């Protein structure tokens, strides 16, 4: 049914800038910027993955020379044997790259940029040049972070959470330059995120197409909108804290230095006040895109649209008042601990709403298992495990036992890999045709999904067992502890699964890169979807629509009895539809 949209989709060659530099490098086109983010963050995802493999080698086979580790310098791994200080750097940088430079830009940088204008019917972002600045700032931040590996003493050694005073003094951690680079990079990244967020917020509020009222927006746009608000308000706190940490290291201030009256816990409060909203930045867009994909795959309207929106808002709001759950045993006031426990547990409620609405959407649907749908269902099933393990930790007395153990590591990876990354694998495949005009291979996509699903669970599920046994995080050599020695076979099993998991990702890389050149040419609307983006040719031209599309309904009208097909694009005018009033005020 693409014909209905044809009047709006007028490909216009020569409209955009033509020189290579203006078109692909310093582009202000939101789609190109999204694609730039995509390549850069996939690179960092790969970097994070390679670091993870070294972590797993050391944990599975402590003290043995790592295959290929010989190329590392003496200061990191003499003869391929990982040193304790290098191990900490691996963990620190793995967490940092994955959170700040892979998942966050993949979700927000790529999909907020790419999808928001396409899905609300705008020509571009409200401030295209600020958008470009946001990308280049993020790129710069990534390079600064990466540079840490090449300076004397290497990158930071304080964990991705950078707890002061360890991070605040070279005397304690043993690195100065690398630590300074970490702070600088985070400040620049903060700036980039703020610029990005203000763009997304303004665009969504002001630049919606006629008829695209608030409650006709796809849930992905809703999620990205709320995420942008979180980013806008959370990142400056991290920047501020990062600056204070930087000053503690460089100009001798004493914010986090107890000897001079500073407070070690202040860092933790600031970091987690940012940090918890941050983890919702890492999941909400994934939830939004999964909602879109599940509705499409089920050929059924999303179940409980309004409660889904409400749940997103509730999660975001509650996200601000739970940060203390990372600090239950930090020496924080125990009464505060009780408060934070209650607010943390409360988040289970909106999360339950989301989970059950996804299930409600699939119920009595007509499920099409294309690759995005498989990944989306994988997301729901895995995110639930991660979310439920959060309940153990939210219970304060229990957290006293499992805090900083592998139980937490399992939680992290169930929500971030099982959650965000599965959603992303779905999203990559789903919007690939819109980005590149070709399809990714269906067959290899399915193989990749199943193998990833298998090895991913084999890698991370046993970590719960380790955690229950009391195995601490960030331990270079678990065999130091007698009570952990018996767990070594399990550690080896995890490591081997992790290597296989990594190897599986090669399928994705080949599929992704290969399809750029030899993928099947994409039909106009490959997933029979209702979204505005599919009224445009693949890939969409610069400026998107010649004339703004008019929107007549919400994005989830699948299997509507009004039409014969099982989908009904947002732009298709039925005889019963009225023209939208010109400028809908906020909130309809």
């Amino acid at each position: 049914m693409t014909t209905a949209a044809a009047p709006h989709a007028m490909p216009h060659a020569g409209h955009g800038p033509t020189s290579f530099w203006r078109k692909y490098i310093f582009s202000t086109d939101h789609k190109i910027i999204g694609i730039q983010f995509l390549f850069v963050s996939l690179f960092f995802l790969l970097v994070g993955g390679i670091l993870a493999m070294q972590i797993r080698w050391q944990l599975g086979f402590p003290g043995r020379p790592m295959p290929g580790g010989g190329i590392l310098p003496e200061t990191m791994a003499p003869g391929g044997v990982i040193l304790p200080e290098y191990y900490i750097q691996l963990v620190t940088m793995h967490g940092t790259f994955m959170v700040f430079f892979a998942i966050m830009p993949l979700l927000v940088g790529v999909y907020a940029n790419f999808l928001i204008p396409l899905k609300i019917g705008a020509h571009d972002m409200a401030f295209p040049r600020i958008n470009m600045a946001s990308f280049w700032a993020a790129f710069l931040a990534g390079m600064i972070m990466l540079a840490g590996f090449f300076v004397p003493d290497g990158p930071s050694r304080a964990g991705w959470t950078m707890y002061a005073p360890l991070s605040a003094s070279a005397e304690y951690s043993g690195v100065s330059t690398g630590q300074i680079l970490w702070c600088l990079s985070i400040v620049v990244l903060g700036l980039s995120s703020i610029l990005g967020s203000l763009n997304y917020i303004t665009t969504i509020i002001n630049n919606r197409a006629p008829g695209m009222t608030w409650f006709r927006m796809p849930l992905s746009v809703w999620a990205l909108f709320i995420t942008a608000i979180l980013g806008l308000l959370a990142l400056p706190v991290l920047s501020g804290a990062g600056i204070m940490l930087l000053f503690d290291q460089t100009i001798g201030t004493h914010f986090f230095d107890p000897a001079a009256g500073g407070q070690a816990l202040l860092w933790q409060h600031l970091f987690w006040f940012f940090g918890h909203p941050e983890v919702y930045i890492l999941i909400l867009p994934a939830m939004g895109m999964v909602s879109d994909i599940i509705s499409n795959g089920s050929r059924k309207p999303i179940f409980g649209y309004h409660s889904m929106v409400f749940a997103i808002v509730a999660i975001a709001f509650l996200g601000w008042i739970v940060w203390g759950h990372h600090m239950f045993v930090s020496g924080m006031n125990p009464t505060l601990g009780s408060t934070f426990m209650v607010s943390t547990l409360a988040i289970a409620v909106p999360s339950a709403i989301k989970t059950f609405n996804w299930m409600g959407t699939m119920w009595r649907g007509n499920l099409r298992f294309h690759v995005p749908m498989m990944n989306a269902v994988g997301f729901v099933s895995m995110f639930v495990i991660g979310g439920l393990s959060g309940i153990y930790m939210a219970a304060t007395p229990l957290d006293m036992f499992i805090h900083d153990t592998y139980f937490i590591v399992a939680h992290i990876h169930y929500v971030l890999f099982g959650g965000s990354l599965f959603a992303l694998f779905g999203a990559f495949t789903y919007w690939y045709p819109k980005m590149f005009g070709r399809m990714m291979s269906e067959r290899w996509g399915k193989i990749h999904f199943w193998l990833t699903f298998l090895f991913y669970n084999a890698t991370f599920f046993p970590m719960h067992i380790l955690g229950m046994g009391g195995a601490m995080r960030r331990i270079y050599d678990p065999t130091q502890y007698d009570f952990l020695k018996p767990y070594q076979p399990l550690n080896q099993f995890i490591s081997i699964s992790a290597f296989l998991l990594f190897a599986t990702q090669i399928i994705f890389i080949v599929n992704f890169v290969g399809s750029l050149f030899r993928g099947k040419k994409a039909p106009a609307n490959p997933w029979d979807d209702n979204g505005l983006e599919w009224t445009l040719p693949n890939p969409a031209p610069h400026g998107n629509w010649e004339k703004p599309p008019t929107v007549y309904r919400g994005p989830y009208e699948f299997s509507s009895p009004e039409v014969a097909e099982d989908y009904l694009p947002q732009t298709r005018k039925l005889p019963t539809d009225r023209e939208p009033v010109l400028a809908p005020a906020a909130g309809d």
Partner: protein
Amino acid sequence: MHWWLPLQASTFAKPIDGLFVAILIITGIAFVVVEAGLIWFIFRYRQRPGRKAYYTHGNNRAEVIWTTIPAVTVVVLGLFSNHYWVQIKGRNSVPPNAYPIGIHAKQFEWRITYPGADGKLGTADDFTVRNQLHVPVGRPIEVHLSSEDVIHSFFVPQLRVRQDVVPGMDIKAWFQATVTGDFELGCSQLCGMGHYKMRARVTVHTQADFDAWMKATQEGAGS
């Protein structure tokens, strides 16, 4: 290898493990409902030619149900765990007869100060040993935690006790061992490159053995 929680060696173990089991049951039910539902839907509703999905935008009764049930569950759960939390970490939770032990953490060792014969810290007969925590069984122990440099964390899995040791703060934590035996005290907060080997032996004695150990060590150290 152990597939379950470690040995229960302190009074905290019962409530904490009980809570674990309770949450395991709650989340287990939620888990089974979700996963079984998903699998069922995947098979039951997979695409078949000529069928159309059931067109609905939702159902308010269903929303109310799956909002209320989790809400009530977490409220109850919160009440229970807060009850134990107050007993374990609450501000007045340390029993008055608790036996004080000073623990000073520094990169990368534990300095453990015993009160000596008079049972009070900060007096002349105190003595300090490195990386050895000896405690009597069946008696509440109050550890005074302090740090020289960075944040460390006092963690003994079998005793189910953990408390961060923060420089500039004077933190008190308590526990009461219920069985004798040898355990390990691990540092569970990243504190530098030696973090992984910052551990100490924990020995839980009978009171008589503890007194004997104390006497022997004090003479050895005091001379």
